[in-house]
């Protein structure tokens, strides 16, 4: 049986994967917008799904993300906390 990969998401990846048309993050070295961000996160999701990977969310990243959760807060917390495919981890 293959080992399940664990991959960390920060708040930026969460936003990119959950929301369409948010623009592109800036590459930290080139300072240029990253090309085809939607295609990249879609491919990332496809790979992680195929590999049955777990998504790790460090608590600082979750805190950043929840700042603007609005009325989605309860649903976010319920799904992220109680699903086997997501794990909140201490930083």
């Amino acid at each position, binding site marked *: 049986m293959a080992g399940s990969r664990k991959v960390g998401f920060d708040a930026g990846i969460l*936003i990119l994967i959950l929301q369409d048309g948010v623009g592109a993050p800036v590459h930290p070295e080139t300072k240029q917008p990253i090309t085809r961000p939607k295609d990249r996160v879609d491919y990332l999701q496809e790979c992680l799904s195929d590999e049955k990977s777990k998504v790790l969310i460090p608590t600082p990243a979750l805190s950043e993300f929840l700042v603007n959760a609005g009325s989605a807060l309860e649903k*976010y917390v319920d799904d992220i906390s109680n699903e086997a495919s997501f794990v909140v981890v201490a930083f």
Partner: protein
Amino acid sequence: MNLKPREYRFSLDGFTPQNIPMARLAEYMQQFAALLGHRSSVHFSRLDDGSAVLVSEVEAQDDPKVRERAQKTRKHIGPRDAQDAVVISDDMLRRDNSVGLVIEPDGATVIEFPGRLKKQFEMIGPISEPGTLDGVPIAIGGQNDPVPVHLEDLDGTVHFCEAKREVARGLSKYLFDDPIRAVGTGRWVCDTNGIWSMKSFRIHDFAVLKEGSLDEVIGRLREAHKKSDWATMDDPLRELETIRNG
């Protein structure tokens, strides 16, 4: 059609066929076999000169599976026994003051073993760290309090935990059945390879996990996200940058 078998090579720098002790060679062969897997299709071919080079032949029909296994192992997502074989081989090479390579039939290096070149870390621990552990309870019992609890994770790894009787009683409802997320305190050690491993875990509480696929969960989160404040912003990534850096 009879296809030619494919050769995988395990090069052991610092050894030659003449000076490698037979017993040590057998140990390296054992780990090489564990790394490649598919034991009925993988055969020892010969020991080549230069450095000692273990050559194995893989029956052509199973070569794609062997290649995938080796490549996944290089990315640290291979089967547990293959990943263990890499760690054990590397430790053997370090003790033998050697380094090694596994080379695919097309000549590409698939796995490098730094062996003697690997930085040695100081052993640390055990230390206590709060955390969570996911798995299905497969054994609960014993006369003492706390009682031993065995959790089997998705990889098939069994984690040896313990829990107070009251918590263990609650866990027993999910024995052999539902995955749970145990919340508690782990005891961790760091070995000389710099790898942290958990030696024990005390379960303080737990929750039963839902087993939605990643796609299903992301689909639900996307629906929920439409009600978030992020969804109303023109540039949520810029807002995130502002949260981080002001």
